[in-house]
């Protein structure tokens, strides 16, 4: 099953499970989304439950707030994460706040799906990785899967969650990764990172599409005799501090890999965790391998920006030998 198929399968299961689940956004209905993530669902569940919305992102998220307040479970799509900004006011001012504002009387329990990330040779606004912005908003949860299995389990958990969840889809690996995934319903818990590989020399933390490049770097590290413990975050907020801290305590070294800008990013947060939770165990300065604090270049310049497996390996090696 590809990641696209896994997401489609999760949506199918929840639409079938719960009549209050509705799915909408730009082109998600008849066409099944520009990436075909929602393909076939309108035909199966009808136009009242899976539909195309007028082209207005604030409208999509704002109406979802109303539906959620009235007890429905909207799962909405931002066609690209770079187009989500008109909906920021709704996300920050209402989606994230309705529960607190009404002291639990109403919630904005919904899932906002959006493909994110670069490396697909796209036009401007189609390549950024802005998870840190969402992670900084109190009241939201943010998840990013890196495998079809996790994509399905996390999305099912997101739809079942009573909290609003920003579900970011690594579009670069929509079809690049295939995995055996059960057709049955299962959950991957929000808030729990996955220790993908045990190791003793360096902890490497990554998530989303960068997991693939990171694993290529790990193959190089293995050849060089460096034992890496690899953690896939899966949930950006709330971060699984315990799993990360335990691993740093064990290895004494930490490298974070992300395609987002460096400053104020997820890697910065993990560096703070290393300081707060494992300071006396550190054998080397915590490192971040990321994009730059720049706009993602158009396709001809994108290779400069995206962290390559070689660059990731280089940082792992330096950290291991520090």
């Amino acid at each position, binding site marked *: 099953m590809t990641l696209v198929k896994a997401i489609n399968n999760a949506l199918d299961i929840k639409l079938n499970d719960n009549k209050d689940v*509705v799915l909408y956004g730009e082109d998600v209905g008849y066409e099944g989304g520009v990436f075909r993530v929602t393909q076939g669902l309108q035909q199966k569940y009808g136009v*009242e439950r899976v539909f195309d*919305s*007028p082209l*207005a992102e*604030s*409208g999509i*998220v*704002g*109406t*979802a*707030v*109303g*539906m*959620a*307040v*009235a*007890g*429905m479970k*909207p799962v909405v799509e931002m066609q690209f994460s770079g187009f989500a900004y*008109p909906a920021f*006011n*709704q996300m920050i*001012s*209402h989606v994230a706040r309705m*529960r*607190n*504002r*009404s*002291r*639990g*009387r*109403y*919630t904005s329990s919904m899932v906002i799906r959006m493909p994110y990330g670069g490396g697909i040779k796209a036009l401007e606004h189609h390549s950024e990785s802005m998870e840190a912005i969402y992670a900084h908003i*109190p*009241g939201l*949860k943010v998840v990013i899967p890196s495998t079809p299995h996790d994509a399905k389990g996390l999305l099912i958990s997101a739809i079942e*969650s*009573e*909290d609003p969840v920003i579900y970011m889809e690594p579009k670069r690996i929509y079809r690049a990764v295939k995995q055996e995934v059960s057709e049955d319903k299962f959950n991957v818990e929000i*808030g729990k990172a996955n220790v993908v590989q045990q190791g003793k020399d360096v902890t490497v933390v990554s998530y989303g599409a960068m997991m693939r490049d990171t694993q290529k770097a790990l193959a190089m590290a293995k050849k060089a005799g460096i034992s890496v413990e690899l953690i896939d975050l899966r949930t950006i907020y*709330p*971060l699984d*501090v*315990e799993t990360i801290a335990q691993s740093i305590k064990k290895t004494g070294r930490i490298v974070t890999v992300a395609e987002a800008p460096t400053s104020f990013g997820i890697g910065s947060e993990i560096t703070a965790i290393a300081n707060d939770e494992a300071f006396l165990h550190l054998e080397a300065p915590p490192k971040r391998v990321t994009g730059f604090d720049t706009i993602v270049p158009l396709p001809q310049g994108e290779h400069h920006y995206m962290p390559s497996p070689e660059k990731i390996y280089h940082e792992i090696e330096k950290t291991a030998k520090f």
Partner: protein
Amino acid sequence: MFKEYDPLKNKLFNVMDKDGHIVNDKWMPQISDDQTLKAYQQMMFARKADLMTVSYQRQGRIYTYPPNYGQEAIAGGLAQELRENDWVVPAYRELGLWLAKGATLKEVFLYFMGYEDGSRFENATHLLPVSVPIASQLLHATGIGYEVKYHKKDEVVYTFVGDGGTSEGDFHEALNYAAVWKVPVVFVIQNNQYAISFNVKNQTSSQNLAVKSVAYGLKSIQVDGNDFFAMTRVAQEAAKTARENQEPVLIEALTYRKGAHTTSDDPSKYRSKEEEQEWEEKDPMKRLKGYLTGKQLWNDQQEEELDQQYKKEVERQFEEAENYGDYPLEDVFKYQYSEMPDILKKQMYAHQKFLKWKEGQ
């Protein structure tokens, strides 16, 4: 009615003149004398509470508050049509509607004293808390309208925005979505002439605000919002259209904010005494009182007695709110998520530890 008062004709709908005489018999709503009197008394209560809240603010006993003074007939008329399961999705200047929905004055006070607890609305159904970001709440109403239609419920969603809010993108998105989805939402513009200091004449080049609905395909009307009977009739027609035809409606209610934008604002800086006087003559309470006294349903002595009674009631609820007690630290954290994540627990415990240390100093 929506044809006769098509907003493209730029014709204001009213029923009663400034002295309380009925000038438009054709559209006088079906309403008993008892009900009219009751409505007047509810509007009196809202005005009393509003004026007293402003003075509590001046005494430093409550924080910033947006007065409703002068706009009472909008809520007064709509309340005649409002049913228990109908939704009210307010902005922040809808005191009459909150009370009509069953929110208590004590809750309103709590909110403006700085307790989120005031937005729980223990005795009210389908009432949303204050929404501060301008026009953003209109989309919520449209979304609720989708739910009402989806579950085939017999409910109408009422939502509110000021004249300034009609310039916001969310206003236009909400009208468009509501018209495309054909949902039972009544959008009410409280056109009180000012967005803080900015006059509505400079807010738009449209001939009126109701006309903005035309492009989106909604029925709409511009109504004298200081005319209780006109508001009541429009509420009846709008609710019928929403309920029976599953159609959204836009109402532009023309009124005047006699008070300040909020207690932090001073309107004398941007508007003239002449203008205030002109609107004083169209005051909604004065007009409805004119009608009631003309029919000998009400007199000054009764008004004075009720005013005293309301004063005591407002004082009682204000005192209850004032004695509400401390805001526990845990309340900062516990409503962020359905379950408190470890990260938040950690931050809370760390702060508690600090407080303990401070106590020991």
